[in-house]
């Protein structure tokens, strides 16, 4: 009888061990923030020094190919994105010039927020602004694709002089910031700023004073 009771206790205790199989994960929104950068390994960043940046951040909606107009990100968020890019480019020794002044590289910032949209982002989002006539861009490396279930900011550095015979302009550096769009505007802006800073921190080869 005593043994039977002990067996019963052990059996009842077994399920108590099971919750331990599902340990904790992230607790705060910012713990899910991710910054990914990529570059063309054959491009010499020390050979360039000027850049152009638009006054708006394109909003990727997925509807452009259906004939809709280009939309832009809310100025509250666009301001912090553009200012952060400017500050980091300046810190790395780059000089901003107007798009009509033959910049070495052209930086194209964009963003999207969605839970279902399959990412589809191409050159025609920038037809309205890009200072050169071209047909499209290309990446020397595969990085984009897939679906995003959150907010993302994309920064692409294009190199107009590298235009190919097929009229594609290479994207020599890109950054993707991804995270959950939760919290106040101030909190989201703070995270965007931190992530853009991180994108440059982990890309020291963009520093014109570096040996990379």
């Amino acid at each position, binding site marked *: 009888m005593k*043994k039977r009771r002990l067996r019963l206790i052990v059996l009842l205790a077994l399920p108590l061990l099971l919750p331990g199989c*599902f340990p904790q994960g992230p607790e705060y929104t910012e713990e899910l923030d991710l910054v990914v950068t*990529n570059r*063309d*390994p054959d491009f010499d960043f020390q050979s360039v020094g000027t850049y152009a940046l638009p006054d708006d951040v394109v909003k990727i909606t997925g509807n452009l190919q259906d004939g809709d107009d280009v939309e832009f990100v809310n100025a509250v968020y666009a301001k912090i994105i553009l200012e952060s890019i400017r500050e980091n480019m300046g810190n790395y020794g780059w000089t901003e010039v107007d798009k009509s002044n033959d910049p070495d590289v052209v930086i194209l910032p964009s963003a999207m927020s969605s839970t279902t949209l399959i990412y589809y982002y191409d050159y025609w989002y920038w037809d309205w602004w890009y200072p050169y006539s071209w047909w499209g861009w290309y990446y020397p490396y595969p990085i984009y694709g897939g679906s995003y*279930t959150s907010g993302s900011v994309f920064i692409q550095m294009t190199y107009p002089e590298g235009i190919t015979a097929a009229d594609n302009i290479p994207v020599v550096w890109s950054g993707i910031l991804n*995270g959950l769009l939760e919290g106040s505007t101030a909190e989201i802006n703070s995270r965007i700023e931190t992530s853009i800073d991180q994108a440059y921190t982990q*890309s020291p080869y963009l520093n014109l004073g570096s040996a990379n």
Partner: protein
Amino acid sequence: MRAIITLISLIVAANAAYAQTTMAVQYSMNFPMGDTQDFVGEPSFRGFTIDYRYHITPEIAVGASAAWYTFYERKDYDTYTTSDNTISASGIQYRYLNSMPLLFVGDYYFNADQQLSPFVGLAIGTTYNRLDNEMGLYDVNVDSWHFTLAPEAGLRYGVGDEVWGFVSARYNNSFETKELDAQSYLTVNVGVMFRSGGF
């Protein structure tokens, strides 16, 4: 052939004279080693093991062991760069290893008729391992079934005619597969063992 028949006859005869089974339920703590430690450096306190033994003699037992262990480690915010120095990713990583060994076991008990009985054993079988690496909103995982060898040693302490307290240490060594490197960890079990019959 005659030797094999003789051996089988001896086992059957011994079995007839001493047919007994035990069941053990154990709380398991695990300490990663080797490549497993490279992936998840923290010890695991989330696991349990269930063992079944068929005693051929009081000293010799064969049986099976099934277990589930979960390892977890939160890596601080860091930057990870590909070897060609082109792609870098920064974020917090949450790493998990879920491990499920399914093993056949043979044990030898010293002083089997005493209250305190040390034992040694060897387990052989397979282990299902799944490694998850979560970064941002993304999860990269890989899983595999390994061939496993696991030597063990422990102590059994009688607390009644049919119940023992039970502690053991088992070195789980799962060999490399096409999908995963070799995975290894030391399991420390604390549990209760019952004689005869099931639950």
